[in-house]
């Protein structure tokens, strides 16, 4: 089945997400769609799957123009989408999730789960997906959940599969396995649209590449004839180097030491399993791992957001195991949280208010029981200038800023004071390349001024580029440690460790 997008335009308010986009998708072929965050890839695919309707343009399937009114129409036309954020009901079983919307039924609308199960097994067999039909989604690892999504699409007999950033939650080895599945789908004659911002992945699996920038198609090509540098330039619009300029680290005294820290979740399962690590002043420690292996909890333990069940945390020589968030902050710990919208800022508050979110109580900003807002506003203005936060006024609600400027605001708030330790969790997730470069520069600058810096990221490239030393987390444990002075760590070995293979330990800091 061939699908063509002709002159698709989509506008959200004043933002032009797609601007006269043309795209050709053919059966038995993998089309790679490359673009930065915010380039309009997801919008385009949501239009193709029927979730959004375009303001202009048409979708042509096998020569016939079609109009989708809702996602149901997309499915009916044989177009299935695997979303970046899984669309699975966690408390339903795999079979229930797969049949949802197209349920086999008996009399009186009775749900025929036996039949559903059998059909799930059949597809499992055909494409080698190996998904347990009766397991609850919430009990499955993310890698398997993704296969459930693919199963869902295949169950609906889709001929076009749209895969939106499918590798974000996978280890490098799982990515290889996943590419295997993609190839077997291609051989079965399916058309695949593979959306990503990762250059090496798109080169590895695509038959044809389209590059999207600021809502427009800016490049098209054959992966065999293109290099990563070519693609990067097409994607960003200028030559970019993805390596971070930095001198060799000068590690000093330990700034943060964790010893056998254990944390349990609500159901008493171990989420941090005797974690020990050290961050020294003047070095960047990267924490690698597939999302959901305890990194969030690690950061929460360090920042004092969740109680630990046992173990000890020492910050610059002081035991802070039981210290409050505010005390840790006051002692010079900066924390850039992983989700700026949910944890890092308040969208309805002004930029000025957001700039003092965790220091408003400080003598600097108060007079008696009142906050000295005049002074806060002046300080916030200075911070905005220092950190290149582009805004017309500090009275603007933070929610009105672009993602990159929001993150720069958060970074400014955390770094514009005496700091000793910087914890940066997914510091560049969802940002444009310009903002990414800027934030990386500021983090390295903190390191060079003698702070201990810890970076937690699910983007292995980011970890490899920034860190002087790397630890890998898997299932709540630190399973490996690598020295990465001058990028010396073996990418493949780190990837293996992310999948749980116990790797070598190249320096003695981990207990």
């Amino acid at each position, binding site marked *: 089945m061939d699908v063509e997008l002709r002159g698709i335009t989509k506008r959200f308010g004043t933002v032009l*997400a797609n601007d006269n986009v043309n795209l050709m998708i053919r059966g038995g072929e993998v089309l790679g769609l490359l673009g930065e965050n915010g380039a309009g890839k997801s919008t385009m695919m949501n239009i193709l799957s029927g979730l959004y309707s375009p303001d202009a343009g048409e979708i042509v399937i096998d020569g016939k123009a079609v109009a989708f009114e809702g996602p149901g129409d997309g499915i009916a036309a044989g177009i299935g989408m695997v979303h970046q954020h899984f669309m699975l009901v966690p408390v339903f079983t795999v079979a229930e999730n797969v049949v949802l919307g197209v349920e086999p039924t008996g009399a009186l609308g009775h749900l025929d789960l036996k039949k559903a199960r059998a059909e799930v097994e059949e597809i499992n067999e055909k494409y080698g997906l190996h998904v347990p039909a009766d397991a609850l989604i919430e009990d499955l690892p993310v890698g398997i959940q993704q296969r459930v999504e693919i199963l869902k699409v295949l169950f609906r007999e889709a001929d076009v599969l749209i895969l939106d950033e499918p590798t974000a939650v996978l280890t490098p080895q799982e990515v290889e396995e996943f590419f295997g599945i993609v190839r077997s789908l291609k051989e079965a004659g399916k058309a695949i649209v593979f959306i990503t911002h990762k250059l090496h992945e798109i080169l590895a699996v695509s038959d044809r590449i389209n590059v999207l920038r600021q809502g427009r198609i800016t490049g098209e090509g054959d992966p065999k004839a293109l290099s990563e540098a070519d693609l990067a330039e097409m994607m960003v619009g200028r030559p970019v180097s993805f390596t971070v300029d930095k001198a060799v680290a000068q590690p000093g005294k330990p700034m943060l030491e964790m010893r056998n820290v254990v944390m349990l979740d609500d159901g008493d399962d171990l989420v941090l399993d005797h974690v020990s690590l050290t961050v020294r002043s003047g070095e960047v420690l990267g924490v690698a791992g597939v999302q959901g292996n305890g990194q969030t909890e690690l950061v929460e333990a360090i920042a004092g957001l969740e109680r630990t069940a046992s173990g000890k945390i020492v910050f610059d020589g002081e035991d802070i195991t039981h210290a409050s968030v505010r005390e840790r902050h006051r002692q010079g710990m900066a924390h850039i949280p992983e989700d700026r919208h949910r944890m890092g800022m308040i969208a309805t508050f002004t930029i000025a208010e957001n700039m003092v979110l*965790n220091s408003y109580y400080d003598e600097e900003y108060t007079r008696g029981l009142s906050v000295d807002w005049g002074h806060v506003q*002046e300080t916030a203005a200075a911070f905005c*200038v220092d950190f290149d936060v582009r805004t017309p006024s500090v009275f603007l609600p933070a929610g009105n800023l672009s993602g990159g400027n929001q993150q720069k605001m958060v970074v400014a708030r955390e770094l*514009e004071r005496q700091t000793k330790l910087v914890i940066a969790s997914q510091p560049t997730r969802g940002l444009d390349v310009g903002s990414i470069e800027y934030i990386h520069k500021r983090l390295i600058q903190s390191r060079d001024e003698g*702070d201990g810096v810890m970076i937690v990221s699910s983007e292995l490239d980011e970890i490899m580029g920034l860190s002087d030393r790397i630890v890998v987390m898997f299932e709540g444990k630190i399973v490996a440690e690598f020295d990465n002075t001058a990028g010396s760590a073996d990418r493949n070995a780190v990837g293996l460790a992310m999948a749980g293979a116990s790797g070598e330990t190249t320096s003695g800091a981990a207990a």
Partner: protein
Amino acid sequence: MTTSIGKRALDDAGRALLQRTARGRSEFEDLVVVPVFAVIVALILGALIMLATGVDLPTIGKSFVALAVGSVGSLNALSETLTASIPLVLAGLGLGLGFRAGLFNIGAEGQLLLGGTAAVVFSFTFPSLPFPLLMILSLIAGAAVGALYASIAGILKATTGAHEVISTIMLNLISYRLLEYLLRQPYIQKEGRSDPISKSVPDAGQLPRLLDWIDPNLRLHAGVFVMLLAVAFVWWLLFRSKIGFAFRASGANPDAARYAGMRSGLVIVAAMATAGALAGLAGAAQVQGVLGRASPGFSAGIGFDAIALALLGRSHPVGILLAGLLFGGLEAGGRQMQVDAGVSIDLIGIIQALIIVFIAAPLLVRAIFPWGFRKDAKGGKA
């Protein structure tokens, strides 16, 4: 990393950022157009309901005249309007403060009942105290008990995550029974009565009437100053104080507040207690200024009307004051309407409920009055 924060001079780029952004048209629509439309539509619907229940047109006309005259048409009407608005505004301030802190306190009714009862009990327990002292201490007793009662819901939420809507509803139901029980206790019950009613507040504990030198029937009492003080206090608390910033932050985004080191448990309990204190104060003002004693259901639904008030006033102290005056006027006018036109005062309850429907669903008002709004004022943002 080292940066010299504080008293450094701002360069031009920085100073440019200190320009206030102009108040947008959508803000004006939100603060003025929607409430005005809401009140007008609610009044029109009220008229339709009267029609539907067989009230003839001249009587409906008479009702609206009575409503206007009874609320602002005379000195007595103004006095009644202000008197009715005192407990409404006090309780509404508490609820508005709760909303700002992200707490949906439905329990003002119970806090008000128990606070008022506490004020009565305190005042007749110490009848020998001199005038202003007994009055002030009784008010404080009412506020304290209201705060304590509300804190139960706050503590439950802070420690276990129990939703405050359910627990405050339950606390309301409990308070009705508790009041009934208390009012039958020999220490509290009025001598020689078998029905549940309390002893009276001694003269020294009452909020003095302000206008009885003009006409002894004018009921406006000193509670009006308590109300104005409370408006100023809540404004300062929310928008200038340190704890108020934590209230607002926790209400707007509890996760971000927690990540910023604000202690969510403390904020919840403090906000709930403050809200309860204001509701308790409302109860105390009502018994010390108007009723003189406690009886079952003396709150007369003020605690629920206050929810409407806080919404109408956009949880802003000044807005709540204005909304309270409006509701006080409806209350006073409604009584006049019942007398003059023979239309049940329950109609006012319907009008109040309709006002909140339109306030809380601005999209609905936009749908009814598209010409009152700039097109696409809240256009979709990606």
